[in-house]
């Protein structure tokens, strides 16, 4: 079981101090938050992807590579990578590069993005969002598994003899999560490929995605990737902590009331009752988080949203201290005690390497000398020489 934080990278005015951080300040803060997440013993840091102000994270792999250089254990991931407006070829290249740089300490979560104006900026149309996401992932999946890809789809220009470089680290593709809370097709795709399924667990009444997670587990088993209990599920959540409940409510309330997404709407108490938000003492947050397992079964990754709505860096770092010291260790112990022995471990690069190679050495692709194209042969890599058809002899 992995615990971590996910950031949407919003730059929001701090309603208490009145200060809006600059983009430079917010980027520095995100790096500090990620590094501190490792220091307090968390396992995962996830960053969102956006292409419009007031968000700052447009280039997740650049940011994550930097954080990777500053950390040693932390698994770096996204929440989410836009599989609709990004070209799957660029995703294959960028995330494979990241995977090499951080020595496999990464994975990624795919999402569609729901801001209509962003799509045309990248030549796409939100009305095609779902087929675009499905088709793009089909291509991404192949680009990481086949040295040379011939491909033609509905949305992207066709590929002939294309090799995505670098090949994934150890020739083991990054683990992929598919994020969704209301789209059965996304759950089906996650299950079909044996990938992970992630529910952001922030808003929607949980009954809806409870059903989708069950469906994903059934289909995961149907496609032969393991039993339903071995399916790989991740959940979001949001928490604000203080030593006691009253302080947590008092300190978080001004931020909650002004929060970009749900501010000026429900009361914080109503929102706590109706959604997974937990505001309170460590014990209260622990109790609420434990209910997630009751609702969704054993799961592999828990990400908390902690750095949003204008909360200043100092407060976020304190939140991490509380999470790392008082909440996560208890959750680890409690969830481990309740865990079904059949449940899957959280996915890691090391585990995927072992699953693919056993004790054997992983493949390390070495390219042949440039022959000007890679259309005419099989693989451009030395270890696949036999498959290379070379030029026809006359």
């Amino acid at each position, binding site marked *: 079981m992995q615990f971590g934080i996910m950031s949407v990278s919003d730059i929001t005015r701090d309603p208490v101090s009145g200060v809006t951080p600059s983009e430079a300040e917010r980027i520095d803060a995100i790096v500090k938050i990620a590094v501190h997440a490792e220091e307090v013993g968390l396992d995962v840091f996830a960053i969102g992807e956006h292409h419009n102000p007031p968000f700052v994270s447009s280039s997740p792999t650049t940011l994550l590579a930097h954080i990777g250089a500053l950390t040693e254990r932390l698994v770096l991931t996204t929440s989410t990578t836009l599989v609709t407006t990004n070209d799957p070829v660029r995703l294959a290249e960028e995330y494979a590069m990241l995977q090499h740089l951080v020595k496999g300490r990464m994975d990624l979560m795919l999402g569609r993005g729901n801001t209509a104006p962003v799509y045309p900026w990248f030549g796409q149309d939100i009305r095609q969002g779902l087929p675009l996401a499905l088709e793009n992932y089909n291509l991404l999946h192949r680009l990481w598994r086949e040295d040379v890809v011939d491909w*033609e*789809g509905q949305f992207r220009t066709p590929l002939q003899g294309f090799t995505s470089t670098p090949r994934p680290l150890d020739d083991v593709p990054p683990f992929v999560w598919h994020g969704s809370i*209301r789209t059965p097709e996304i759950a089906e795709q996650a299950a079909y490929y044996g990938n992970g399924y992630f529910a952001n667990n922030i808003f929607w009444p949980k009954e809806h995605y409870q059903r989708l997670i069950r469906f994903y587990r059934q289909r995961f088993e149907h496609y032969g990737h393991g039993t339903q209990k071995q399916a790989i599920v991740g959940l979001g959540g949001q928490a604000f902590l203080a030593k006691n409940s009253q302080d947590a409510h008092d300190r978080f309330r001004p931020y909650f009331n002004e929060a970009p997404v749900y501010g000026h709407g*429900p009361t914080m108490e109503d929102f706590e009752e109706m959604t997974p938000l937990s505001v309170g003492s460590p014990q209260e947050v622990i109790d609420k988080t434990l209910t997630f397992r009751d609702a969704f079964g054993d799961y592999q990754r828990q990400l908390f949203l902690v750095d949003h709505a204008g909360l200043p860096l100092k407060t976020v770092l304190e939140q991490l201290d509380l999470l790392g010291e008082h909440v996560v260790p208890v959750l680890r112990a409690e969830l481990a005690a309740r865990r079904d022995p059949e449940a899957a471990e959280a996915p890691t690069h090391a585990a995927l390497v072992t699953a693919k190679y056993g004790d054997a050495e992983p493949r390390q692709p070495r390219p042949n000398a440039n022959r000007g194209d890679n259309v005419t042969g099989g693989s451009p890599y030395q270890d696949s020489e036999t498959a290379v058809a070379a030029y026809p002899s006359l």
Partner: protein
Amino acid sequence: MTDFRLVVVSAGVSEPSSTRLLADRATQRVSALALQRGHAVTVTTVDLRELLPELPTAMSNQLLGPKFTRAVDALVGADALVVATPVYKAGASGLFTSFFQVLDNDLLIGKPVILAATAGTARHALVVDEELRALFAYLRTLPVPTSLFAATEDWTDKALGARIDRAAKELVLLMESGFARAVKDESWGAYQHSYGSAGGTELGIELDSDLMRLATGGSLRDSDEDPFDPRRQV
């Protein structure tokens, strides 16, 4: 004979409310007529005023509070509706339209509805036919032909009672026809639904679709035309 579940939605806010009174008179006639014809009617009343505190969240986040959820559950099971709104500034009350705007598009398909409105002046009489009828057409309900409208002077006019009788009769006949249930049983799939819609009841997952084939490595392109389609058996 069949037992019917009738849901009354009233957007009246005063106490007592003439809007609620009009809805209640229609409801009583519906129950009485149905009973004469051998049907028992269970009535659930949704007083929208009580949902006011939950309205902002429902409108901004589609997050329904407990009262809202109970109202939706009642509507899911309804065989027919009586809806009534006061007219403000020449239009239906904002509370009334907001409530129906929050509901799923496919929540009320095929259900018969009595449309009713009250106002301080007869000059608002067409609000029911010109505004409410459009809203309930969008929701693909079956509004009865007779609309109910009561301005101040109508309360003492026997003609209002006659119109209430007529609308009630129309509603009972439509309920008896079983139209909504037949639509649900026979052509539900012909309407647009999304996962979790129809008040959270639309949770079936269709595996046999182009998108599901695309989700499982297939192609949107016609497999005959796509030489790279992995499903092609070469």
